[in-house]
């Protein structure tokens, strides 16, 4: 039994499908990369997995003691207004909310978890800073820390490195790799096919051509060849 099993899933908006017949499974400890062109429906798929969008058809089955709210999520874009007053600590702590249930306040363990994740992301010195005054890369770390507070099992990341410089990108990838080694299952949307091939264990390619399989199978497949070929052309 796998963590998440997706069967014949169609995703889209208002009854219009963006992508049809998606099939894949994610097992415990997997590192799945979702690749595909702009507009192919990667974010839509993510939102459907999270229950923010309703699936048009098909099923998403959560197995093995994984419930829906044990998923941490790093959105592609957060629609946070420019003038929102919120400190880094408040935001990271808000990741613990679903663990709170109906309890009104955070307990010691949750506060400790937030501190722990802040430390892990290397943003301790930003702890009491205002979120909106941080740089894009710093904001990304804050949101990743928040996502880590929400889960110990599965992390969904939608283009976590977009807009980050190469150095920060590399360190973020290393960080995600370490999290994966610690046993957290990663599902990541990325345009960075090179990194996908380097770090992922499985690859889901969506777009005109659907592919799901292990990394090695992907490199042999036609979808994978297309990508690697286009890379050669660029180089």
């Amino acid at each position, binding site marked *: 039994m796998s963590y998440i099993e997706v069967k014949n899933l169609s995703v889209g908006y208002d009854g219009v499908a963006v992508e049809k017949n998606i099939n894949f499974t994610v097992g415990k400890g997997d590192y799945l990369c979702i690749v595909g062109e702009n507009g192919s429906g990667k974010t839509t798929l993510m939102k459907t997995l999270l229950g923010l969008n309703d699936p048009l058809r098909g099923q998403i089955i959560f197995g093995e003691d994984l419930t829906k709210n044990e998923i941490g999520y790093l959105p592609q874009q957060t629609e946070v207004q420019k003038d*929102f007053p919120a400190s880094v600590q408040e935001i990271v702590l808000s990741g613990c909310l679903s663990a709170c249930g109906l309890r009104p306040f955070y307990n010691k363990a949750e506060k400790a978890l937030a501190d722990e994740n802040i430390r892990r992301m290397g943003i301790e010195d930003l702890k009491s800073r205002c979120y909106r005054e941080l740089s894009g890369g710093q904001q990304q770390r804050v949101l990743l820390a928040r996502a880590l507070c929400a889960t110990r099992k599965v992390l969904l990341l939608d283009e976590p490195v977009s807009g980050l410089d190469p150095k920060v990108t590399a360190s973020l990838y290393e960080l995600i790799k370490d999290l994966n080694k610690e046993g957290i299952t990663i599902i990541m949307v990325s345009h960075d096919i090179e990194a996908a091939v380097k770090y992922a264990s499985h690859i889901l390619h969506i777009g005109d051509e659907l592919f799901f399989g292990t990394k090695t199978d992907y490199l042999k497949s036609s979808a994978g060849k297309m990508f690697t070929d286009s890379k050669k052309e660029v180089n």
Partner: protein
Amino acid sequence: MDKLALYMSYPFVRYAVIVGVLIALCSSLLGVTLVLKRFSFIGDGLSHVAFGAISIAAVLSLTNEMVLILPITIVSAILLLRTGQNTKIKGDAAIAMISVAALAFGYLIMNIFSTSSNLSGDVCSTLFGSTSILTLTKGEVALCAILSVIVIAIFVIFYNKIFAVTFDENFARATGVNAGAYNLMIAVVIAVIIVLAMNLVGSLLISALVIFPALSAMRLFKSFKSVTICSAVLSVICALAGILTSILAGTPVGSTIVAVDVAAFGICALVGMLKKG
């Protein structure tokens, strides 16, 4: 000062001060959330709806207006916050639509059916706040106090949830927080506050009570907690100063409070600028 002490010895003045402070406190608490959710004008819209409801109640000559006003306002609040999530009808347009429609129909109904000899006086007092805050009965004060305590309790208990839903609704929903229920709760609470506050400042000036303390606090502070606390404190101080001034100087209560709020905002904006530069 003597004059003030003398006035304070009258129970109706004390009632007015108590009620004013409680309402100011309640409205400022949710103000931060509403401003950040881009619902600054919901106070305006809802109070106009309440105005429409009042005119219907007046025509039906109901003895207890509240039974009509509160449900109608709550339903409108729920509808407004619902459309706010649906990006196809922008929240501000929906609020503007409902608010002017309710205002027009309310005045129309009052004009056609009203038996009162002093129509424009009635309308004016519902729009700009009546002197009825100075004629509150013990029962009304008690009702207001109970509702305020409930509102404050709800805010404190759900503070963390309200923060999460305001900051990033999608993330909250994705991690299993029932954002819809909390939005509904915010809508109901804000409707109750509006209906309460109409007595104090009238339906045209309510937005001031909701947004000014929040905006002032946002000039000065950068975390949600400090902004919330600051806006509550500011709002209470301004309401107190406004009510006392209006008693001493004989100015209209509602507009005096709002004027003090505006002044406070000016000071906060200035301090905020100095801090930065």
